[in-house]
């Protein structure tokens, strides 16, 4: 498959899979305000995923899974609902099963800070679609990061329990942080072409943002080693955790039952 298409899948799958996890919170948040806010974040990411999947399909139609002749399923849905887990290109951070609210906040902070820094650069992409998606996404991710940052501070300085839970959640999230900044060969090539962004170039900026949040919150950043891959292969290579195939089984069940369906 073409580099641009694969690159769009990476950006799309991060958003699609993490949006799924966030949407699992729906009707389960600590209070209505958070239920609304989390749904908002999930919706923004879902919107990004749709545009990016469509761009991927347009860039290289050969990546779109084949469906029966005459199927009305649009490319974005064929990609979302008819790929298996080894074909998903998201980082493993996106697919982790949900933990408690502290885990939600810790993960969202790291995810949105990284994606925001990436999108700020991607807004200058030579690809007009990617540039537009990124420009719109910058506003969205800024809100997501601020929401997570405010709650991070609140939990850090709230109660003994909230602080303990936040610290525990951070260990699991930070183990998967570095994967966000590892340069995949596809990313390297699209960056050279001026179409994409090498995520490694955002690492220092994101680190500075997180350091500030930690400092203001009075939380010491836990030192953790990154989670090993499978013979070096990680999410971007299609090597995932056990959680992703279960997530997809649920996400895809209705769509797959109706390959000729209209929705």
């Amino acid at each position, binding site marked *: 498959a073409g580099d641009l298409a694969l690159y769009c899948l990476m950006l799309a799958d991060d958003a699609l899979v993490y949006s799924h996890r966030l949407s699992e919170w*729906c009707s389960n948040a600590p209070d209505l305000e958070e239920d609304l806010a989390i749904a908002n974040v999930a919706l923004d990411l879902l919107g990004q995923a749709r545009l990016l999947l469509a761009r991927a399909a347009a860039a290289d139609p050969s990546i779109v899974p084949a469906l029966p002749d005459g199927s009305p399923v649009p490319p974005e*849905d064929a990609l979302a609902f008819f790929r298996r887990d080894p074909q998903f290109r998201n980082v493993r951070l996106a697919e982790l099963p949900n933990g408690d609210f502290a885990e939600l906040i810790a993960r969202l902070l790291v995810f949105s800070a990284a994606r925001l820094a990436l999108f700020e650069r991607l807004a200058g992409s030579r690809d007009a679609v990617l540039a537009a998606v990124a420009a719109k996404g910058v506003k969205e991710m800024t809100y997501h990061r601020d929401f997570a940052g405010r709650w991070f501070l*609140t939990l850090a300085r709230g109660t003994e329990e909230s602080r303990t839970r936040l610290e525990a959640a951070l260990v699991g999230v930070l183990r998967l942080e570095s994967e966000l900044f590892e340069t995949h060969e596809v990313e390297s090539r699209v960056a050279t072409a001026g179409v994409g962004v090498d995520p490694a170039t955002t690492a220092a900026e994101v680190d500075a943002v997180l350091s500030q949040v930690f400092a203001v919150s009075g939380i010491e950043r836990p030192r953790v080693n990154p989670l090993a891959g499978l013979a070096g292969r990680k999410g971007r290579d299609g090597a995932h955790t056990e959680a992703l195939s279960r997530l997809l089984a649920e996400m895809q*069940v209705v769509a797959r039952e109706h390959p000729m369906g209209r929705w």
Partner: protein
Amino acid sequence: MTQVVDERELEASFERTIAHNDRIEPRDWMPDAYRNSLIRQIAQHAHSEIIGMQPEANWITRAPSLRRKAILLAKVQDEAGHGLYLYSACETLGVSRDDLTRRLIEGRQKYSSIFNYPTLSYADVGTIGWLVDGAAICNQVPLCRTSYGPYGRAMIRICKEESFHQRQGYELLTTMMRGTDEQRALVQESVDRFWWPALMMFGPSDEQSANTEQSMAWGIKRHTNDELRQRFVDMTVPQAQALGVTLPDPDLVWNEERGAYDFGTPDWDEFWAVVKGDGPCNAQRVAHRRRAWDEGAWVREAATAFAASQQTSEVR
């Protein structure tokens, strides 16, 4: 004696406001029975929005297209928003949201019985929009003119969004009807399950309804249950025909004389069983809400503690 006179004057003023179809506002005097009746009604309505998130949220993660997933997620989010407005309206009557939530999860306040039915296929998302939101709108549009100001204003906003949801639901069903045979069967099966429960959403028939008369006198309610039910049936039958589904009622027939549809009698035994807590999902819905509330306790406590610490530092 002075106080008695004052109270009489206040009551007279209250009655005049009601009679002129003007709004009662939070700072106005109002009889305790009116206040309590409103609290019960608004809270029940707010609880319905919040509990009503569950049957639809059940399908967000399984939505069969990304477009439908976005629509559904936004809709359930709107319901949380409606819950928020309504709890706020209720708080103007002097009860806190926490308090109301506790009444819900302890089973002391009710919510619309329709949400005690399960959602069993993606067609249910459409059917809930079409029939359940449709019935809710019939119930709620008159409440935009209800006598209590904050409630009426909340209802105006809510009704607007509900109409939008209803159209989206109907649109999903029409799309599915243009799809495969399996999809058409799903729509019919879903309508079969939801038709009667939707009719029951208007409450028992007028002879059996305890609250109707007083609520109408106070302008909290503006039409009887049976009037609203008839209006809903008359509105819905042509839509069903356009959609191409059969409503599961052999007695449903146009009555030229009345200029309205005749229809069968809902199974009121089932209605009362569900109201009393023995519906297919009552226990599940309340347990879900209780679990979410309990699991969120530490977060709410943290927010409170943090806010208090911020105020302290501001004072300094």
